[in-house]
């Protein structure tokens, strides 16, 4: 088990050892950085391609049909076919568009999506960079995609993308705060911002999701993550049925593929982070560590795709109301419960935290009852 667990780390050490022989040592440091970068640069787009495939398969199966199965055995070559199609598609730039912003937007939208992978602990000792502010780094970089999306919508000078852009910025800004607030209990308990130490705090099955505050913090964080990534039921910025394709209406060919890639890579990153923060990252009994991380991340992705196959879309003001009136107060109250949990000794804290959490839930439900939709009655005349 030990060997397979750190197979990649050993592989990297082997390369470095081999290079040690005839390269000056400062180049070896650069090579080791380069190896991690190439690993991420390959892992990112490949996950994106096979996430599109997985999404079409799962949504297909939800809708009683097969999903792509013509290209390759189970349609496994479909993402490659899509990639080639995207490359060969004509890249139309609207005549009235602001050329610079229109061109820069897809480029800048991919950078945060890739940067964010550097902080995720894929396995034991396999986090590309062990920043001691890793979690904050993740949250900060993911806000940059807001600006890129807005550049895309502003640059293409199209009314629908303008609407999409406005919605995207409003949504991202208002879901950033509950997301950060829902992460605070995790930092409070582990005492450090680094994702690697967060995972170490959960080793041995003591995952945060089993604690009363952790379960609800995970839900809030996941919902905010789905909103951050613009996926159903929060996919207003590209509401197909309302504003055609929102901010990427005027993009075609490879530029559209970049937007698409950024969306899927950040979806994987958010699921990876949820797994790290609440589901114990790469901690798991038998399988090697990185396999556990992938299982958990793909479980989260399955839930996101499941959302996409079922739920309709929220309206703009309901979206805001949901974030400000429900998620944010809930996350704040959750911090107190986590503090309570952290303060008391082991057996008592579960009971007290559980009770506190129940009180919090009741308070939130009662407060939200007013504007939550009521049941309807119908009369049967003849």
């Amino acid at each position: 088990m030990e060997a397979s667990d750190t197979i990649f780390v050993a592989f990297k050490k082997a390369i470095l050892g081999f290079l040690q022989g005839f390269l000056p040592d400062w180049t070896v440091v650069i090579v080791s950085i380069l190896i991690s970068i190439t690993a991420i640069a390959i892992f990112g787009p490949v996950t994106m391609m096979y996430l599109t495939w997985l999404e079409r398969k799962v949504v297909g199966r939800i809708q009683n049909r097969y999903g792509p199965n013509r290209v390759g055995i189970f349609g496994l070559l479909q993402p490659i076919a899509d990639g080639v199609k995207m490359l060969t598609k004509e890249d139309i730039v609207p005549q009235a568009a602001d050329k610079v912003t229109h061109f820069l937007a897809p480029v800048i939208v991919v950078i945060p999506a890739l940067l964010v992978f550097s902080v995720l602990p894929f396995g034991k000792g396999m986090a590309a960079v062990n920043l001691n502010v890793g979690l904050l780094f993740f949250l900060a970089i993911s806000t940059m995609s807001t600006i890129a999306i807005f550049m895309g919508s502003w640059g293409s000078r199209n009314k629908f993308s303008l609407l999409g852009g406005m919605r995207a910025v409003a949504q991202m800004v208002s879901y950033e705060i509950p997301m950060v607030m829902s992460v605070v209990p995790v930092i409070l308990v582990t005492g450090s911002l680094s994702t690697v130490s967060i995972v170490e705090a959960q080793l041995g099955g003591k995952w945060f999701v089993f604690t009363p505050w952790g379960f609800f913090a995970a839900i809030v964080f996941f919902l905010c993550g789905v909103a951050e990534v613009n996926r159903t039921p929060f996919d207003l910025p590209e509401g197909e049925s309302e504003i055609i394709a929102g901010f990427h209406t005027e993009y075609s060919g490879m530029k559209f593929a970049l937007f698409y890639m950024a969306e899927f890579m950040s979806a994987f990153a958010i699921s990876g982070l949820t797994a790290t923060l609440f589901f114990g990252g790469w901690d798991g009994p038998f399988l090697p560590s990185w396999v556990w991380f992938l299982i958990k991340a793909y479980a989260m992705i399955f839930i996101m795709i499941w959302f996409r196959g079922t739920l309709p879309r929220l309206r703009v003001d309901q979206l805001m109301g949901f974030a400000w009136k429900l998620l944010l107060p809930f996350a704040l109250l959750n911090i107190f419960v986590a503090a309570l949990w952290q303060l008391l000794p082991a057996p008592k804290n579960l009971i007290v935290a559980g009770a506190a959490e129940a009180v919090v839930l009741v308070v939130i439900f009662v407060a939200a009852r007013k504007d939550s939709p009521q049941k309807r009655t119908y009369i049967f005349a003849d």
Partner: protein
Amino acid sequence: MSETALHSQEPQLLEVSIGPQHPSTHGVFRMNVVLDGETIVKLKPVMGYLHRNHEQLAENMSYLASMPYTDRLDYICSMTNNFAYATAVEKLAGIDVPERAQYIRVLMAELTRLVNHTLLVGFLLNDLGAFFTPILYAFREREKILDFFEATAGSRMMCNYFRFGGLKSDLPAGGLEQVKKIVNNYSRFLDEFERLLTNNEILRSRCQNVGILSKELAVSASITGPMLRASGVNYDIRKVDKYSIYDRFEFKVPLGKVGDVYDRYYVRILEMRESIKILQQILKQMPEKGEIISAKGAAAGKSPRMWKPPAGDAYGRIESPKGELGFYLVSDGTPKPYRYHVRPPSFINITILEDMCLGYKVADAIIILGSVDIVLGEVDR
């Protein structure tokens, strides 16, 4: 950044044209919308992109020749279009319809109502953003009914099955068993559909109190069909006219209270359950044997070009799934109708789209249009 920030002193009004090239306008239909931020200030529906000159064509052809064209009016429920046209011509020429043909006609009309309402709910959820799942469940059930239509009439959607005074042909050999199977597990499908949709909080919050249509406006704008009944007006032509043999079946007419998008959605689900009740009664009461077309009807069908109905005019109407579908025919004794006019429920229901959409958001306008249930073939004729 709440909505109010967008109302700067001189509101920056955005003129947007939604459609005809738009993913959710149910065909080629355009809405010129003036937006203040996301709220709708003015909305002008633009139609006519699918105008095929149906009425002028019908005035240059024999009566039977325009029967296949009525399939293409509201291409989702072709059987009810034939039914309305056949009723109108029978009223014009005084042709009677035998017993078994009446039963099969009502059977086909109620099956088309199921198809239309299931599709409507599916398309409404599509506009709401549910990524094709409800619509594909709706298609899965619709296929079974369309297979039955293909077995009896010969084509899935363009049935051309009704003739003046009866039907083109009788049910095929295994026809009744196929209908029994469809009717028996349709209510199970409806329960699954309701479990997926009705109490869904997102659907509820998106559809409740959106696009409210008051009773007075509905009546004054001569709205008919489920839209009218969702606003609480008890007007169903099957009960008012008691045409064909609808008086032999006992079924209820569901009425809404508020008249918003949610009521229009749920009234249609309840109507589907009533249709299933009617279908079950038909299966019990239908006579085994019986001629399929009356003597006068057969004579009319022998050589349609020569058949001359007596001069005069007639207005035949039925309760199609979208509302009151009527055909007004004026005959001057020649084989070609002198005047042929269709009263399309979709066209009349869409006229008040602006009154329902004012003050709501762009996303609401799309689902209000979806809840009105228009089919452009019928709107533009």
